[in-house]
């Protein structure tokens, strides 16, 4: 899992300032230091959400990384 792949926020715990971020079938918990909501696409590094990403850019990036992963497997 490359940390530059955007993930989708599927749950936010505002008391703990944490969010669950989904990457396909994998889920990771990350700390938030700014407001995020369910459905937002984010970049996580070292267990913190470092930025939000517009949906169109996120989908472009996910497509790019999935293509590269496929080529590595081949």
């Amino acid at each position, binding site marked *: *899992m*490359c940390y530059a792949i*955007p993930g989708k926020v599927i749950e936010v715990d505002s008391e703990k300032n944490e969010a669950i971020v989904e990457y396909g079938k994998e889920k990771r918990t990350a700390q938030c*230091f*700014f407001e995020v909501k369910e459905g937002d696409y984010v*970049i996580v*590094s*070292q267990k913190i959400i470092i930025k939000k990403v517009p949906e169109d850019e996120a989908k*472009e990036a996910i497509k*790019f990384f999935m293509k590269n992963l496929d080529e590595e497997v081949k």
Partner: protein
Amino acid sequence: MTPERYFFIYAFPCAYLKLERGDLTKKEYELLEKKFLNKDSPDRRELERVFSPAFVWIKRISERLNKDIWDFNVIYEYWNKEHNEIINNGEGKYSEYPEVLKDLCRIHEAEIVRKQEDKNILLVKYNRKQRAVFSHLVPNAKIGDKVKIHYAYAVEEVE
């Protein structure tokens, strides 16, 4: 600051990407991180090995300026000017990168809007975007100050 350290403070933030890609082992990454946080730097040979793609561009600058690749001005020129231009022009591997990744790769000048000192985190804004970055290298920076950011790190204060 030595040219090695100056190169390293800007290069280290992308080492995490190299770790997750499998280009660096966890042990190699941890050794680099220790030096990064302790105001130290690997030697020139090690830096040229780990961050080899950068030296293709640094060599080009050194030839243009007619200076050694480890001349401080050459390293400074790379991180403060040429690096973003290479990304914007889509040279080399950047031709394929999506905008999300290019934005993380670019060096940005960002303004501090909040400090989370217990976690060594700064919330910064740049180009109408916000980002959370680690503050280890700029412990004295205050809200309103400007810092250079690369990936998940604030690298140095803007004078």
